[in-house]
């Protein structure tokens, strides 16, 4: 079963890395996001007005030295979401071109079909995250740009911890979008659903803006968004005096539940969603 999953995961990854444009996009997209969006929204500057108490920005923005650093961490989580949202796309194509039928007549457990897509998407998301992280750090050495400022003593444990949380986030989102793709018949519907949930998920979270400054009704939702759990956990590792939203344990257990529940859902529903009546 594992063998079959890996064989199909390999197929997905081959589809991805054989298209040169996709590799290019994977690298260029974070540069654009971090370079433009991250540098343009220099919100920290507003807090430097005369008469403002010092340290107010750090207090509001999880201890980040500047807005770019705050956003770069959130962007790691957002990039996971953006990579995962097309996770089920290949299922829709395979259904259209008949490849799905080939899988369905083969004696593989039905769950292998979604799980292989989830694996390949998670691998891609993690590669993307490494690139985003490297670019954000590299900006420190580019004159005229702000880079990701991490706390003193940010070491291997913090790096591994951060990637572990992003991994769980990726498993959860990849499972969510793969299950949606199993359930819909055509790509138009899938695009519609992705568009519907994608931006609200990003904005109703602590990824790009602190939840503390949101109205209460939104804050109530945003604080439990998986993106918030990941971003909050990462910032506690990255900055000093991070003013956590949740405890570290809450974030980790929350992400474990999120990923565990959704990948189980994907496997459990695959049998029903892949049978023709």
């Amino acid at each position, binding site marked *: 079963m594992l063998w079959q999953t890996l064989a199909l995961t390999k197929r997905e990854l081959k589809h991805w890395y054989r298209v040169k444009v996709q590799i290019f996009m994977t690298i260029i997209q974070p540069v654009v996001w971090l370079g433009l969006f991250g540098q343009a929204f220099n919100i920290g500057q507003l807090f430097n007005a005369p008469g403002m108490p010092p340290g107010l920005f750090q207090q509001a923005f999880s201890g980040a030295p500047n807005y770019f650093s705050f956003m770069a961490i959130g962007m790691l989580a957002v990039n996971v979401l953006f990579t995962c949202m097309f996770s089920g796309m290949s299922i829709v194509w395979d259904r259209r071109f008949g490849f799905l039928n080939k899988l369905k*007549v083969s004696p593989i457990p039905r769950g292998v079909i979604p799980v292989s897509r989830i694996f390949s998407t998670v691998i891609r998301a993690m590669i993307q995250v490494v690139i985003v992280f490297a670019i954000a750090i590299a900006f420190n050495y580019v004159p005229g740009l702000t880079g990701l400022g991490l706390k003193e003593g940010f070491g291997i444990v913090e790096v591994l911890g951060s990637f572990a949380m992003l991994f769980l986030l990726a498993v959860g989102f990849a499972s969510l979008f793969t299950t949606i793709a199993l359930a819909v018949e055509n790509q138009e519907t899938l695009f519609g659903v992705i568009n519907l949930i994608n931006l609200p998920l990003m904005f109703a979270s602590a990824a790009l803006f602190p939840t503390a400054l949101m109205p209460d009704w939104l804050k109530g939702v945003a604080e439990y968004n998986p993106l918030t759990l990941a971003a909050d956990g990462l910032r506690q590792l990255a900055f000093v005096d991070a003013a956590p939203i949740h405890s570290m344990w809450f974030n980790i257990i929350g992400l474990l539940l999120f990923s565990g529940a959704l990948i189980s859902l994907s496997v459990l529903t695959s049998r029903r969603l892949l049978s023709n009546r």
Partner: protein
Amino acid sequence: MTAIVEVENLVKRFNEDVLAVDGVSFTVEEGEIFGFLGPNGAGKSTTINMLTTLLRPTSGKASIAGLDIMTQQDEVRRVIGLVPQDLTVDDELSGRENMYLQADLYDVPRDEARKSIEDLLEVVDLQDAADRLVKTYSGGMRKRLELAEGLIHHPRILFLDEPTLGLDIQTRAAIWDYIKDLKAKHNITVFLTTHYLEEADGLCDRIGIIDHGKIVALDTPATLKRSVGGDVLTIGVRSEEDLTDLISSRPGIISVRKEDGVYRAKAVHGEAATPEVLKAIWEKGIAVTSVELSRPTLDQAFLEYTGRSLRDAEQSGSFDKAAAARAMRRRR
């Protein structure tokens, strides 16, 4: 011989009102090439999809190699190979990668897979193209790859859904050779659907003619052809004398008609009746100028059993049924 496929009263109904397969029953013997012949929308593919576990029957029973298609789906999937109507090989992988993927899906051990993949690629003449991406392949090459893929796990029965649809004549002939080879070398059972009569005729040991979801005839191609009437003997003579009675008095001749100066005689066994007729004419001292013996084609049998109404329009829904009915009225 033992039955490898046993089908009993299989029914498939889509959305209440479309009865795609209407209670078919048949058996396929191990080692034979069995063909389902029928017009578009007759229920051929639906039947294959049910037998290969892609579709759930509405009612009825079917088993493959003694395994129930409803309750033992995983076991059934291990003993069958399917070459579907659509090309389902992966465009973005090479031919060889497609084969390895297929081998992995069926848990074929690596060493064994390596060997049978090379063998199969050779059988379908794809060794040279094996490392090219499939998107550079022609339609015939894809179909051959598909055929090879269906065999990677040594299935006991191979299902071919319209194996030569849309292929040129050379490729079609090549595919037929591969299928015959398979049967000869591996004693594999082949179940195929087609609407090409010459394909069914040349390839199949037995044919089921299916129409409107029902099997209307099931026998060897030769018997089916014979059942619609005998051979036709066409004789031209240099004489004004009427030979109708003379010819029809010969043994084995069913009827005789004079048309455009030639006699057309229907005979049960043409090869036996021809010398008799020629001898009788010769003894009268009349010169024979031409002789032609033609056998009934499966086309005749097919049209005899399925009628001549248009089918393309009929397969999808009630609107098209109305259109087909209009077309039929116009022709009357």
